[in-house]
């Protein structure tokens, strides 16, 4: 080489060689930059593109938790069910396939052919088939027809507790009732795995794949007792039919804990096929419908008056012979009373007597007590769609309000608000928050969460006991709801007969009849509300709702094996004696 370098020719060769390699190394450097750019800066962008190409996310639905009653009886459960889909591209004989499917599924052939003609990879044909159809179609191994396991929500008891349970849609999403309220607990977490697909859209099983196990939804234990619910439904149905009411509601609650033991509405629906019922049937009237509480509210007025000490049960009030003019408004009683004791005013449900007591009490105190008894505010029951009712604030009161409100007018409340208000008297003066969800359990049966009663003392035990003894009079011979008497138990309760407002005026033909009562009166196990909307032929709460109350109470107490009090007059006096002793202790 050295000799070559001596010639000028080769000097130029050297330069040319350097030039060539300079270009080559420049290109190599450019490639180096390009590699860095692609693999570092474009990494995220290209990785996403790659994932889109290779990965397919396959979700498998979580097993939705079951809903059980307080004794563990099944109210709602998810069962595996196969759903049928087609992959139009893989169907070989659309005509034949459509024929077969229409035969088994009972669907229009033309509709099926239309679905099969879609330019998609996946078209649902029918979801959640029954077992027999699935097995028959599966046997045929039709190309392009596939099955996918899903869970079907089943309500084995049909209409029982339908408004409490609500229902879930086909994808297992709770749409109403407890299903919706507790959807997050019930639904669990759906699992998934990533499939790696090749360019021919086939799944590659050998390559490692990411996956996540789903978790089963939690089971709900409701406060409902299936048996009590059954009694409630049956008795409500009877009275609903008998009086041709437009709607009806019954609630059974534990007055001490706020647990809802039974809750039924009429009209009702079957959660297994909610779509076939009119939307108004799906409404849980116990929490969504507004009524004037009527005479039931007189208990609140009485409680306020007694608690504030402005009147004693034996104080006498002149009831104006059934017609009283106050500030240019006539107030009527259903019977002309002269002088009644305060006790009698409530028992006989005298509007005039109650209004006069309220006047003594004053607007502010009345409003305060109405609030503390839960009116104008949601009870907070764990069901979706509850409304808060109407309780006008003081500054919106008319001059007439002070005699309208105490008798349960100018106020709107839901059945659940009413029963909660009366429960305060039943349980010795505590306002308890009603609830349905008693416990949450995981799939192993461990209790994950337990609801605790929320209560607040709003009137004294003494006042509550006094009122209980007054409410006991309601169902005695001289009271307004004699037919609420349950043989062998003492019953306390209050009727309500509210005129419905039609076109801005109180109607004389449309009423809401209600009865709320509890038994055994001195140590109540249950408090029961029965409310009928627009009953025909009769409308007094004492005549319409009280008999249904009596039946429900009688059967529920028997079911709960509450010892009979075997009441005779002397025994009752004895209890009154005991009550008096309790007072003296305080």
């Amino acid at each position: 080489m050295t000799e070559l370098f001596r010639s000028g020719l080769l000097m130029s060769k050297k330069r040319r060689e350097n030039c060539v390699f300079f270009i080559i190394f420049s290109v190599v450097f450019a490639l180096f930059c390009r590699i860095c750019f692609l693999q570092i800066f474009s990494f995220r962008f290209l990785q996403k593109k790659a994932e889109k190409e290779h990965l397919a996310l396959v979700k498998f639905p979580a097993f939705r938790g079951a809903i059980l009653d307080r004794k563990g009886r099944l109210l709602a459960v998810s069962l595996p069910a196969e759903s049928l889909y087609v992959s139009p591209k893989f169907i070989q004989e659309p005509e034949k396939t459509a024929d077969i499917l229409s035969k088994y599924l009972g669907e229009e052939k033309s509709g099926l052919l239309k679905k099969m003609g879609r330019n998609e990879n996946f078209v649902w044909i029918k979801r959640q088939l029954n077992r027999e159809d699935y097995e028959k179609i599966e046997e045929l191994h039709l190309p392009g027809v596939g099955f996918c396991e899903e869970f079907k929500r089943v309500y084995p008891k049909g209409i029982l507790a339908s408004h409490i349970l609500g229902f879930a849609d086909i994808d297992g999403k709770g749409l109403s009732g407890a299903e919706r309220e507790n959807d997050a607990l019930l639904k669990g977490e759906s699992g998934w795995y990533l499939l790696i697909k090749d360019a021919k859209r086939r799944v590659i099983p050998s390559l490692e794949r990411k996956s996540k196990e789903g978790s089963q939804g939690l089971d709900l234990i409701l406060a409902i007792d299936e048996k009590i619910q059954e009694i409630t439904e049956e008795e409500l149905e009877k009275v609903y039919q008998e009086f041709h009411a437009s709607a009806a509601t019954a609630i059974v609650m534990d007055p001490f804990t706020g647990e809802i033991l039974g809750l039924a509405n009429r009209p009702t629906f079957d959660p297994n096929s909610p779509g076939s019922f009119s939307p108004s049937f799906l409404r849980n009237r116990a929490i969504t419908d507004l009524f004037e509480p009527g005479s039931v509210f007189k208990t609140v007025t009485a409680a306020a008056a007694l608690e504030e000490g402005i009147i004693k049960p034996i104080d006498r009030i002149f009831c104006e012979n059934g017609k009283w003019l106050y500030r240019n408004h006539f107030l009527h009683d259903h019977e002309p009373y002269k002088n009644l004791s305060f006790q009698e005013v409530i028992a006989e449900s005298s509007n005039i007597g109650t209004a006069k007591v309220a006047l003594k009490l004053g607007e502010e105190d009345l409003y305060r007590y109405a609030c503390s008894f839960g009116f104008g505010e949601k009870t907070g029951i764990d069901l979706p769609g509850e409304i808060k009712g109407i309780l006008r604030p003081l500054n919106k009161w008319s001059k007439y309000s002070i005699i309208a409100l105490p008798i349960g007018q100018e106020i709107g409340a839901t059945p659940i608000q009413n029963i909660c208000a009366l429960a305060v008297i039943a349980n010795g003066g505590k306002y308890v928050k009603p609830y349905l969800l008693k416990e949450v359990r995981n799939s192993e049966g461990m209790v994950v969460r337990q609801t605790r009663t929320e209560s607040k003392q709003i009137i004294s035990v003494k006042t509550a006991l006094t009122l209980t003894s007054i409410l006991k009079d309601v169902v005695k011979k001289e009271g307004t709801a004699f037919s609420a008497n349950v043989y062998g138990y003492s019953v306390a309760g209050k009727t309500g007969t509210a005129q419905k407002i039609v076109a801005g005026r109180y109607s004389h033909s449309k009423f809401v009849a209600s009865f709320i009562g509890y038994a055994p009166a001195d140590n109540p196990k249950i408090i029961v509300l029965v409310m009928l909307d627009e009953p025909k032929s009769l409308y007094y709460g004492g005549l319409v709702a009280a008999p249904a109350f009596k039946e429900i109470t009688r059967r529920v107490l028997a079911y709960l094996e509450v010892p009979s009090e075997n009441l005779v007059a002397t025994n009752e006096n004895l209890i009154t004696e005991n009550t008096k002793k309790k007072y003296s202790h305080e």
Partner: protein
Amino acid sequence: MYLREQFKIYHSLLITTVLLVGFGVIMVYSASGISSGEKFHDPYYFLKREILWATVGFSLLFLISRFDYHYFAKISKPLLLFSIFLFVLLFSPLGVSAGGARRWLRIGPLTLQPSELAKLAVVVYLAEFLSRKRKKITEFATGFLPPLILLAPFVIFLLWEPDLGTAILILMVSFLLLFIAGAKLSYLGSLFLCSLPAFFLFIYKSPYRRARILTFFQPCADPQGIGYQINQSLIALGSGGILGKGLGKGAQKLFFLPESHTDFIFSIVGEELGIFGTLFLLFLFTFLICQGKKLAQDSRDAFGYFLATGITLMIGLGAILHIGVAMGVFPAKGTPLPLVSYGGSALVVSLMAIGILLNISTQLEEKI
């Protein structure tokens, strides 16, 4: 002193070659395992053959490295003729077509690719010619024209196959060798200008080549259509990122990238081993080019110089072409990555070429 130098180049070349081939064998298996398992019901189909060819190749490499390279000067013309003869055989029933190209000869169980031997034959011939006629290289008729006339049949055969990639590679290597040897720039320039119309005509006559060129300028225009290969290759490289998805865990070889074990092996390396894998390969080839260049400068005579330069350019430009295509820098044209991609003929010929380099390295010029 000079013994040490010679020792150093010899071993660094050998180690680089072993690393590249070893790396290649692993990557060929990773890239082809699934597709060959499906096609031939044997995931090791390509791996077994690659190992066999590597064994044959390394045997030849060691044989040739002990064999004075000057002997190649003597057989340069017969080698050239033999190479042309193999091309002619493509017309015989021995020729095998695949994927729209007639590039292979089937002789019993063996499949040969005449174009691979042609590369080496052309380099050896040009080295011999240029070392012999280097004084006359500036003359047109005696220095510049003869190599062009001899190149013509190769280029015609390669374009007929068609194997545009190899044709371009051979033309580029020849062009650069002539340039380095001192051919007049005016000759080279006019040759280049003359070939341009022919080149364009060739590309525009075939719709698929035209499409490739067009998509090169707009790779994302139609990701499912013509730009598919470039797009898939970029996705493979990019999704590998810095660390890669792990050896064997790439997904682009699942029929997203066609011929991933040959034409797109670099993309698979990028996907599975990340930037470490790609830069490692780039480094090995750069090192090989540097060593080849050094070897050429230190070689004892002009033949050695041109031979070493030619072989270095052949392997180096081949690698650059392959990597550039994989990264969408050059219009998509499948060429194998020398020493790494699957392909018996290519591997054996490349290893033989390295064998020649090794022999040159044992006969370095003494430095004072």
